């Protein structure tokens, strides 16, 4: 099998620290990591490879040159090949343009069977790029995968919903997005790390290497624009209702009523 895993390098936003005085995020020294869901999708690919050593796992990332580190980490975990899509022209892309660029790059990789994405990146947080890549490539998708079972040329995906799950059968080639319940990602091994920096390679594809319409990429090709960003309203001190008596409690409940919260 040939599996493509899309990984995004993200700031480690779970290491959130708030400045106790200003209530603002302290972002200094926040490290970059592989997006957590993408590690689950890579692990799923590597497990398929464990069972079928003929499998090739190719990791693809679009990002700045520094994303090399994320790809090396994926190689050290066991991926076979890595492709970094990188170029100033690609900057400012929204999810539509991002998926268009990644799909255009994937079209250059012949005969893939399966594309794995994370469900959601922890920075942009949209969960849109996976399904959009599938659409751009014209292949079926199954999102929210909590279990994957390869069966000849089909896959059975356990697909999570709010309060139930479905087993969904899909023929390859297809695209699946992973959630963290899928598996427990493995660690890099010392041998793997050595290989990632010697035997294995990160191929860089720039603007000239990816067949895209320049009108459909970057800020210009993106249907959405970020119009404004701001910190979530620093919640000022709310109302303090003094006393442990019934009147205080009644006041609280009528306030909740007024706000339609009850």
């Amino acid at each position, binding site marked *: 099998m040939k599996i493509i895993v899309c990984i995004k390098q993200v700031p480690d936003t779970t290491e959130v620290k708030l400045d106790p005085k200003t209530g603002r995020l302290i972002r200094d020294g926040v490290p970059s990591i592989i997006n957590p869901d993408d590690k689950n999708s890579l692990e799923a690919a590597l497990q398929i490879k464990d069972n079928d050593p003929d499998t090739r796992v190719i990791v693809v990332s679009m990002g700045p040159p*520094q994303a090399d580190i994320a790809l090396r980490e994926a190689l050290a975990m066991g991926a076979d090949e890595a492709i970094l899509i990188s170029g100033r022209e690609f900057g400012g892309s929204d999810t539509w343009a991002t998926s268009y660029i990644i799909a255009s790059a994937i079209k250059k990789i012949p005969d893939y069977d399966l594309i794995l994405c994370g469900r959601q990146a922890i920075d942009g947080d*949209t969960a849109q790029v996976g399904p959009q890549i599938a659409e751009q490539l014209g292949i079926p998708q199954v999102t929210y995968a909590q279990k994957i079972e390869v069966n000849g040329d089909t896959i059975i995906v356990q697909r999570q919903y709010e309060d139930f799950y479905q087993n969904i059968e899909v023929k390859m080639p297809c695209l699946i997005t992973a959630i963290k319940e899928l598996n427990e990602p493995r660690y890099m091994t010392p041998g793997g790390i050595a290989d990632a920096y010697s035997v294995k390679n990160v191929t860089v594809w720039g603007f000239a290497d990816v067949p895209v319409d320049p009108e459909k990429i970057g800020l210009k090709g993106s249907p959405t624009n970020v119009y404004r960003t701001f910190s979530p309203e620093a919640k000022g*001190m709310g109302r303090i209702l003094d006393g442990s008596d019934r009147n205080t409690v009644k006041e609280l*409940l009528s306030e909740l009523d007024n706000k339609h919260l009850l």
Partner: protein
Amino acid sequence: MEIIKEKCRGCTLCAGACPFGAIVMVDGKATVTDACTNCGACESSCHFGAIVVDKAEESARDIKDYHGVWVFAEQRDGNVMSTTFELLGEGRLLADKLGVELCAVLLGYKTEGMASTLGAWGADKVIAVDNELLCNYTTDAYANVITKLVESRMPEIFLIGATTIGRDLAPRLSARLYTGLTADCTKLDIDEETHNLLQTRPAFGGNVMATIVTPNHRPQMATVRPGVMKKAPWNPAKKAVIEYVDIAIAKDDIRTRIVETVRELKQQVNLIEADIIVSGGRGVGSAEGFVLIEKLAEAFGGVVGASRAAVEAGYITADHQVGQTGKTVRPKIYVACGISGAIQHLAGMQNSGCIIAINKDADAPIFKVADYGIVGDLHKVIPILIDEIKMRVK
């Protein structure tokens, strides 16, 4: 993006605001590195107008031919999801601001009953497609049918609930229609000047809010976080015009097959999806004391959470823990009882809709994030609270 060196005062605020660490100080001036993604997060941090983020140029697409607000009327097993009513409530406000029609798009099988309720929730019109192959959601069937509807009828706004189905369907549609999609919005409005939809959403795990616009593509698509928008009052006298549209669906075009649907037993502690959470901390004092927390949760119809100190003291099991090393929750109401408000606890609950704190120490940090605080002994306050809630139900 660009930094106008002359205007930069070297205050470093932008460097702190950049989520990618792409702004460094060189010779006392902010300088952009290759790590910049042009996301725009820095722009509003600069008090001196020294940061210019490139905005896309106007394109020639004719967007004036698109009219009306559409809402995807999600149904499961023949029941319209409550998110749909929220979308209709919000869609009504937007449609009225624009002076256009509000239309619900309903896909399913044997939909008459469902279609007739949508008017009462605010829809002027219902477009229904009834077909056995639409009984259960599949990406292909739903995307194919809706694409045909959008292409022939051209709505200017299309709202979809950010459910596990909406977030599968919407990106597929937006990719096919080459239009913008804003994820998981918590606020929507109309720009008075341009009439564009202003779509506000949390990003970076809720640490940054972004307002997104889709200036040159239509429809402007957004998924909307369930539980945030208000339903319009139910008005059975209001009837929508119902139009059934026949769209052929080929079985072979549906490339996924649902083998089985499995409903798991309700999880014991479902903090993530709970609308109301009542949490207890060390201040509760004992495992017996937690019975009071449970009773309050029951009265509210919510579930029980806890601080790590309460878990470590053995008052309650770890699956109830909220915070950095526990669950991150976002209920409509979070009641913190005897919890001091350590930063690791706040990290897991500060995005809750309404925070109520009960603590005997008026200086406890939890009051800084609370919408309502009661300074008092929880053992006295909670029994009264339970009593009052029960009286209301009666």
